[in-house]
């Protein structure tokens, strides 16, 4: 029992359930299955991006360019789909992922090979990628009627009355879970983040891992580029602006240590769910915009305090009484 309480994933889970109940009391409409499933749909992109951001944070870095990457990939395929509406949607999805990966590799190469610090690199590409959207789109939007029908249809597909977006998030969760817990690559990420000096001694090639981590982050930003424009049926220069901060707070709330090497896929997902819940619930209970910001800020702080409390070193039993 003590272990259960100390387990931060469990605490986070309880907070989420507690939060849902609380909001449900204030606004019973919110806990209807259909609105809860809307919350999940709404949070799916956040979950995917938080999980891919987690890979980067694990190795003591951060990818600030994800939202711009998402927006640029999304804009490029939207523009293309208006020109070639007959192409299958799968083509656009793959293309979006490839564009995202390419942008991610650029980050990785700049950091690993050119040795530009990750903050500088991704802060730079945050603006560059965003700027490129103006460049390719001439500052114009792509409106819902300009997309082909097939481009938008997939996103409305439902399975077990849960949305396509949600199932993509589930799929990404499973893939990430296996990747980080059951592959050498994933485990080496933990060791590299935990102790970069020691990782050298066991032959982990840091540059390779940095580039791969940023490529993965880019790949999922690209994927979310499609998901985002399809979901909101609009591509503009403004989409997902500032979303990288939401993603990073989801990771931090989920217990991914910015010091590297610490964090679980489950924790990260719960962190994203909590942030998603807050974003959806606060408007539902009629809290003013200002208070919404303050409350989300407070919840993030509390989560971080819980993190440090549960991470303290425990004494090993020496004497049996």
């Amino acid at each position, binding site marked *: 029992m003590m272990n259960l309480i100390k387990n931060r994933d469990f605490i986070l889970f309880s907070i989420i359930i507690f939060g849902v109940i609380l909001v449900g009391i204030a606004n019973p409409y919110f806990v209807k299955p259909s609105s809860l499933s809307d919350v999940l749909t709404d949070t799916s992109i956040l979950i995917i991006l938080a999980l891919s951001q987690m890979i980067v944070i694990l190795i003591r870095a951060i990818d600030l360019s994800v939202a711009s990457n998402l927006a640029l990939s999304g804009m490029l395929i939207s523009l293309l789909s208006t020109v070639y509406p007959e192409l299958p949607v799968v083509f656009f999805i793959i293309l979006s992922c490839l564009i995202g990966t390419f942008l991610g590799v650029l980050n990785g190469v700049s950091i690993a090979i050119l040795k530009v610090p990750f903050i500088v690199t991704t802060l730079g590409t945050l603006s560059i990628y965003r700027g490129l959207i103006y460049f390719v789109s001439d500052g114009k939007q792509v409106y819902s009627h300009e997309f082909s029908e097939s481009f938008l249809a997939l996103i409305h597909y439902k399975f077990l009355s849960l949305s396509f977006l949600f199932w993509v998030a589930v799929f990404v969760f499973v893939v990430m879970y*296996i990747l980080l*817990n*059951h*592959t*050498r690559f994933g*485990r*080496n990420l*933990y*060791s590299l983040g*935990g*102790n970069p*000096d*020691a*990782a*050298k*001694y*066991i*032959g*982990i*090639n840091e540059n390779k891992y940095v580039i791969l981590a940023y490529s993965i982050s880019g790949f999922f930003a690209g994927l979310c580029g499609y998901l985002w424009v399809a979901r909101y049926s609009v591509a503009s220069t403004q989409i997902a602006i500032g979303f990288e901060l939401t993603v990073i707070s989801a990771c931090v709330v989920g217990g991914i240590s910015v010091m590297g*090497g*610490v964090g679980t896929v489950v924790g990260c997902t719960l962190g994203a769910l909590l942030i998603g819940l807050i974003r959806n619930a606060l408007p539902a209970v009629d809290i003013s915009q200002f208070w919404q910001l303050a409350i989300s800020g407070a919840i993030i702080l509390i989560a971080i305090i819980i993190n440090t409390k549960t991470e303290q*070193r*425990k*004494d*090993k*039993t*020496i*004497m*049996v*009484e």
Partner: protein
Amino acid sequence: MVVCLFMKLELKKISKFFPGIKALQSVDFSLKQNSIHALLGENGAGKSTLVKILCGVYQPDEGSIHLDGQKEVIQDPTASLNLGISAIHQESVMFDELSVMENIFIGNHITKSNRLVDWTSMEKKTIELLGNLEADIKPEEKIKDLSIAQRHIVQISRSLVHDADIVIMDEPTASLSQKEIDELYVIIRNLKKQNKSIIFISHKLDEVLEICDEFTVLRDGELIKTDLISNTNKDQLVTYMAGREISQIFPKKHVKIEDEIFSVKNLYKKTQFKNINFNLRKKEILGFYGLVGSGRTEVMKTIFGINKFDEGEVNFKNKNLNITKPKDAIKNGIVYLSEERQNLGMTGLMSVKDNINMAIMDKNSQYLILDKLKDLQNASELQEKLNIKVSYWSQLAQSLSGGNQQKTVIAKWLSTKPEVLILDEPTKGIDVRSKSAVHEFMGELVDSGMSIIMISSELPEILGMCDRVVVMYKGLIKNILEVSNTSSEEIVKLASGE
């Protein structure tokens, strides 16, 4: 019969230079199959540098490496492992947040046929490896929850898991107590039986004479002598290493012990220790002996205020002390030299001089201005006394050899001239000559009125230096013995709970 034409490993004219430092100069080294080869030398002689070259961490600036007669270039640690070389490094290369099991297999996870990590087999193998070392460590424990010695055991297990032909052990027995060392010997001898070659680095010459077959001595990065162990003896080895004959054993200065100055009554900390009662008299050296993990360090850490105790009292000069943080202890003249020196004791990116003077900045300054001359005087005096090998004064502490880093931290705490000095494994990892220098220094300190508590896992050190010894076992004090009235057998027996 297979006749081995080649040496297992041969280094020819290997040199390695760091800015301003010749760490290795044209060193030849050959290792036979089925042999335990001691690599000896004073702190800073170049032993670890040689090991790192073999492990692909450093590239040699000159010379070549031959394995089974074939020239090899070891460009990185993976290449080294693939060539069948595995090593325990002197500094901890552990991952605090990962489990014991994963630390053992890191970089080399067992995978199933579908290329996923096979946690079950790794756990089984871990239990087996730790069982061989009779270590009470669970596979799923996190490294950060282990003691220094337990981490050491995990490192040893890691080097064994690779099933390498050449196993390099850079001071594997530092910070282990006799029982664990004996188990390690069994393992090393087993490795030899399996036709492997072992490079064994140690400053404990008795153990070198006991288990090694051959030796190579380095001094200031140069090869001095390589021969069979059976052709040498301890004094000769010391002479090779130091470059001149030195008397190794400084007999302990006789000092007249005065009245009680410090005492601990009924100290108790849940799951850690209980009924801790002892006193320390002025000018006394009180030893603490016990197996790894018997609670010695925990007791000292609570006395020093790093951890809190649940019950009991600490008295100093007949006054009850209320120590809640290390600063309180230091203010009262009680100083603790932690065994975790690299982490807690040193600032790697500061110069050696600044490290030594860090704790006495206040004393060496006047009107807030640091007295540079006094600073340098103090540092150079201690540097000379402890034989710290620095190439230049501004050398960063992190580029010192392992033993010289230790000595730097010792120098730092000794400069504070406290009334009660608690030393945790003070001579771990330092060479014979410096060890006797530290011992001599301890003698001078008690003579000048200081009282010392010394935790040590080395019996000869306890017997040679201490007036009384407290023997601990699983968080309890088994007995407190007058050293002049006891034997090593009695102490070892008590320490193992008999």
